[in-house]
């Protein structure tokens, strides 16, 4: 599923990050959104966009449309 389809409080593992613009895609990766990274959807902003994730022990925000570039495997655990 896509990261943008995940709900608050769900956990997943990044499978793939796609993107047409290499430089921008690399920026996303450099912030730690790499393949195999465990992500936790902390919350969506009050206006439903952007969303806040916890990865590698820190909080990061992404727009929904950018999260739509990230494919994830949902993990069925309730823990982060």
């Amino acid at each position: 599923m896509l990261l943008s389809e995940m709900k608050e409080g769900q956990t997943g593992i990044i499978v793939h990050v796609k993107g047409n613009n290499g430089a921008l895609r690399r920026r996303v990766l450099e912030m730690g959104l790499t393949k195999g990274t465990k992500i936790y959807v902390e919350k969506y902003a009050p206006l439903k966009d952007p969303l806040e994730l916890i990865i590698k022990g820190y909080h990061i925000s992404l727009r929904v449309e950018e999260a739509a570039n990230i494919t994830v495997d949902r993990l069925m655990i309730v823990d982060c």
Partner: protein
Amino acid sequence: MPKLMHKKSITIALAGNPNSGKTTIFNNITGTRQKVGNWPGVTVEKKEGSVSKFGHDLKIIDLPGTYSLTPFSIEEIVARDFVLEESPDVVIDIIDASNLERSLYLATQLRELDCKVLFALNMADLATSRGTKIDADKLSELLDVPVVFTIGNKNTGIDSLLKVAIKLAGSKSKISQKRKVKYSNDIENSISKLQGFIEERIEQNLPYNIRWTAIKLLENDKIVRERIRQKIGNKSLEIFREVETHRKHLLDRFDDDPEIVMTDERYGFIAGIIKEVVTKSTKRRIDTSRNVDLVLTNRFVGFPIFILFIWIMFQTTFVVGSYPMEWIDSGVNWLSAILELFLPDSLFKDLLLNGIIAGVGSVIIFLPNILILFLFIAIFEDTGYMARAAFLMDKIMHLIGLHGKSFIPMLMGFGCSVPAIMATRTLESNKDRILTILITPFMSCSAKLPIYILLAGTFFSARAGTVIFLIYITGIILSIITGRLFRSTLFKGADAPFVMELPPYRVPMIKSLIIHMWDRSKMFLKKMGGIILVGSVIVWMLTAFPRNINYSMDYNKEINKINTSFMDKYSNADDYEKKQIEKQKNAAITKLKLAEKAEKAEKSFMGSIGKTIAPVFAPIGIDWRGSVALLTGFVAKEIVVSTLGILYTAEEADEPDALKNTLLASEMTSLSALSLMIFVLLYLPCVATIATIRRETGSLKWTLFSIVYNTSIAWAAAFCIYQGGKILGLT
């Protein structure tokens, strides 16, 4: 033993992620001996400090905070170039211990750069309290880098950090080549082949370490390519061809760009280190920052709290600020009263009292406002709330076609457009930057505030606060309209990604808040000594000259006439009548004197200029005095108030409300005051801002565009308000 030994000078660069506590450590090392300037050629802030410690002169350079050294943003280019070109003796990488994994990305890049690097594991106490334990010895061993624990906000570990840095700078041993990032076999293969190829072809030294050069070429680093081309000319083509072969090979092998694969692998390497170095206790702990954030960015209360904070910021600025303002005001009045008494009448006295003291005095009074406003902005930044503001606002900003981060420069625009426009450097896309620069001047800067306070305070007394609030809102709304308009016409195309760290909330340090606030208020004071002083003198000169005016009547003769005519009445009147007559006489004389002053101002150079351009301002309800004040506002917005003060020469200069009363007595109405305020809000920015726009956009075209656009919008908006108001029958 006499100390004749020459102290050795050591250059230490501080690198690190944003929010790693780098600035705190820098402040702790250098104290107040800081020099704030710009990196050559760009306007990224450069902080330098010198300190003598442990028998060495230490020069500390604070590099811009970055997450990576991939040269995408100007900050990253500046930081990398400094390490590459200036070769500091030691680079200290400040690592946020509670955020080790991501911090190590920059650390491994520094490690690859082949400089003497040392890690400061900062805020490890915080990490420990969150259940994360870091084995520093292991980390040091794995990356072959000295590691020191520091707690920046408690000033712990700083001395040992400096001691290790000095020792490292003095060590002759070569920088260890092992234990840098190890990539997968395919990539390592390409790196070593390319390395060999480069070594074979090239006799003279390449600018940088060969392995690093090979890695950067595989990553298609444009800056490194360009430097190599400059250094070895045509021979570089051979190398680039070889690079292409390898890149193609890797692309086939991984089905992805080599730079992407290498980013992935760097994080893979880091994950390996983390596994060996970090132990996490499974015990769940209360994460205060996370709980605070659940409230501050809450679906329901997030926005109300945000608006409340902004409201508190402005309310404090004005209400609390009004007390010190009164003290400054009485101080200035006292000074001019003393001078009035003791100086003989002369042109110089006129210049000093009516030009310099009146001009600068009417502006310095706003120093408390500006200090408070910058204090709030510093608090927002240092607590981490600024990032939440961007998080909350991104959806809205995105509707205008901007990045949530654009909100930060725009918010700073309420302080001063100059640092605000500089802050657009945090935006990665050039389009976003120019668009943000163009709309930032609509955020009403603090220099415009004195004008609103004067006009709204005079004409809307009880509702002044509301009126000023609405003025600010008008600016915001117009910036939204402008943003949307330009985004769909001049700046079409994709937006920059919104990848932003939300740092944990921190209690700000008083020292850092004060340094922050002071750095920015200093700019205001510098303006005061320079531009505003010069501006006040010019305005005074234009008002005081020409000296010999052809008055429409001989005022002195008229006054004498009154004196004699009343003398006649006086002779045959009783005591009561005498008093009445006295009153009438004085009133008549004052009237004449004021008329003389008004005529003098009208016939001065300034009056002529104002009258020439007045027809342009007539439809928006601004008379020639207003026109002149607006013209002088080009130098600096603060001057508008002092110009009004000079032009509406107040009856009794020592009375604090003199200007207010004179304005009320003039033909200015609340409607025309409102129109004037709107015009001030929107029209062309001050000289300093225009210079900054020119520098930051690097384009004269955009600068002129900004001037013309702002001024036209200002006129149109003021026209609508004034004419609309008149139709509605408001005054």
